[in-house]
């Protein structure tokens, strides 16, 4: 009898659907929002349920259409001047109201500063379980419908799958760059439902005074090409060569933790453990040995080119193309050849255009 109580079956039939929080600043959505809608779509389909999106802000109506185009069946939107900037109290108030009314079985947020701030507050209010910083998300089908939320643990040395059996909704934050957004489809149709904001400005103590965008901002998460360097560069000077290659290709410069820790380049360039998880179309790993702490952050790249002196370096195990040699020779050659080819490509495009005209 006691055992039967312990393994009690919960009735969660009231809770259905997957809800994604769409993070934005000044009407611009964070890419992780669309990535999560993509993954949310996969989970919702597997559970044979609906995908919801929550859009909160001021003048963010266009994001509701975007959310539908990226896979949402229904978008809940709450617009008010008080919601222009993210602040914990008013945003968590809206999300709480939404979760209590809609009763989704799963709620996902980007593992950004804002996503973690908001999810942490909501999970405590509800209360329910919240898994941080997930990199794999799957579901068990009926009857359990459990979210299998997996995340790196112990400095990325292990992975752990975390479940929340006794509470609903199941919540998780997920790393940017890990999941793939669906291709945008403007033909998709979805429902848009408006929510009231119930919080007045005078009830909100926190005031956002200003926001200074990072000037030297590297946008690794959205970069299509990343030229990354590691310990093998031997010093900060060699990053100039990488910068030239990146500039020739229209890419960004990345770095391994070793190069960042050595002070050769800023932390905002760091890929992998405690840095960014990226999924560019093309990734150059130059002078990077390829420790798992680095490769967890870049192995989703479509194409990886590794350049290293040591042909046994583990980076070659995740590389599509490998060059063993001296980066100080190879990188400038790559830069020059890239300039030549791009110029030739432009020329060809230009000529085609003239023929067509």
């Amino acid at each position: 009898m006691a055992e039967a109580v312990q393994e009690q079956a919960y009735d969660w039939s009231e809770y259905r659907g997957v809800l994604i929080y769409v993070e934005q600043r000044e009407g611009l959505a964070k890419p992780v929002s669309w990535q999560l809608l993509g993954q949310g779509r996969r989970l919702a389909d597997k559970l044979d349920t609906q995908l919801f999106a929550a859009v909160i802000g001021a003048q963010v109506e266009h994001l509701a259409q975007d959310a539908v185009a990226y896979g949402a069946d229904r978008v809940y939107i709450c617009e008010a001047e008080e919601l222009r900037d993210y602040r914990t109290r008013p945003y968590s108030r809206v999300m709480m109201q939404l979760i209590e009314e809609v009763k989704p079985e799963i709620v996902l947020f980007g593992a950004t500063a804002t996503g973690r701030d908001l999810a942490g507050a909501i999970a405590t209010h509800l209360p329910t379980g919240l898994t941080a910083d997930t990199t794999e998300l799957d579901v068990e089908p009926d009857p359990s419908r459990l979210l299998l939320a997996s995340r790196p643990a112990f400095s990325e040395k292990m992975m752990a799958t975390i479940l929340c059996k006794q509470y609903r909704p199941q919540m998780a934050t997920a790393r940017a760059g890990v999941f793939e957004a669906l291709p945008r489809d403007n033909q998709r149709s979805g429902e848009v439902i408006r929510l009231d904001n119930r919080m007045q400005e005078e009830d909100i103590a926190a005031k956002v005074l200003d926001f200074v965008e990072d000037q030297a901002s590297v946008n690794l998460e959205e970069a299509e090409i990343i030229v990354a360097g590691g310990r093998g560069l031997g010093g900060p000077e060699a990053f100039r060569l990488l910068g030239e290659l990146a500039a020739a290709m229209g890419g960004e410069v990345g770095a391994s933790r070793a190069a960042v820790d050595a002070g050769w380049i800023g932390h905002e360039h760091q890929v992998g453990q405690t840095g960014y998880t990226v999924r560019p179309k093309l990734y150059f790993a130059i002078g990077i040995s390829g420790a798992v702490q680095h490769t967890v952050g870049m192995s989703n790249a479509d194409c990886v080119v590794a350049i290293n002196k040591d042909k046994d370096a583990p980076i070659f195990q995740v590389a599509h193309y490998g060059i063993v040699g001296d980066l100080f020779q190879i990188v400038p050659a790559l830069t020059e050849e890239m300039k030549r080819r791009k110029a030739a490509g432009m020329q060809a495009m230009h000529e085609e255009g003239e023929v067509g005209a």
Partner: protein
Amino acid sequence: MLHIVVCIKQVPDSREIRIDPATNTLIRQGVPSIVNFYDLHGLEEALRIKEETGARVTVVTMGPPPAEKSLKICIGLGADEAVLVTDRGFAGADTLATSYVLAKTIEKVEQEWGKVDIVFCGKQTLDGDTGQVGPGIACRLDLEQLTYVSEVKQVNAEQRTVQVGRKLEDGIETVETRMPVLITALKELNQVRRASLPGMIRGHRYKPTVWTTADFPDLDRARIGLKGSPTIVAKTWVPEAKSVNCQWIDGEDAQAQANQLYDGLWDADLPARLGWVQGGASHG
């Protein structure tokens, strides 16, 4: 005088943890215990406020008895009092159960030493890596919540306001709010001091206040430890490095290698996928 509580955690230095390749399990032996370093940045900021405007600084931790060592370090750095909350019943807590106990602890600290104005936590712990306990405490105690703080710009004890810089992915936001407030610290917040010799002696001699479940008469037993934790670890594994077939570029010099590589990329239609040319491969 302001009363500041700093929440700390003694953690295994996860950077030192290795995986046993034979068994695929963590080798915990010989891994040093340290004060979670983000928490030390919170303590440092509390001590700076203490020096500038006057404040009482109380450090709290939930953990097993050896965590006393970390509290002594904090006293050595300049904290006034330290509390260890320890009980077998607290073991196995996830972030929800942890924030419950720490919130109860802070309430009790208020009863003992007076109303709390500011609570500092680290951005996250090295072993848990969640960043959820801070917001959890703020929520339970109805504190204002300022996470990912890289600069405390102003603390106005009279008007009871704080102004901070929050470091987000794309820039720095300046926010002002009222006390009581919970702040989570980034390492950019400050440089942590070294303990002075008298400080170290004081820390060494100091006996932290110890509270167990018995000291919390209204504690809900269903909300602590493993039982109060909605999340459970179902399994752990060591990720296998993804292995792809590496095509070696072995041209005789750098120029030949560059050509060979780009020919490969061009054959894979990369220029079109990157939008450098329209449609398929430009040659062919």
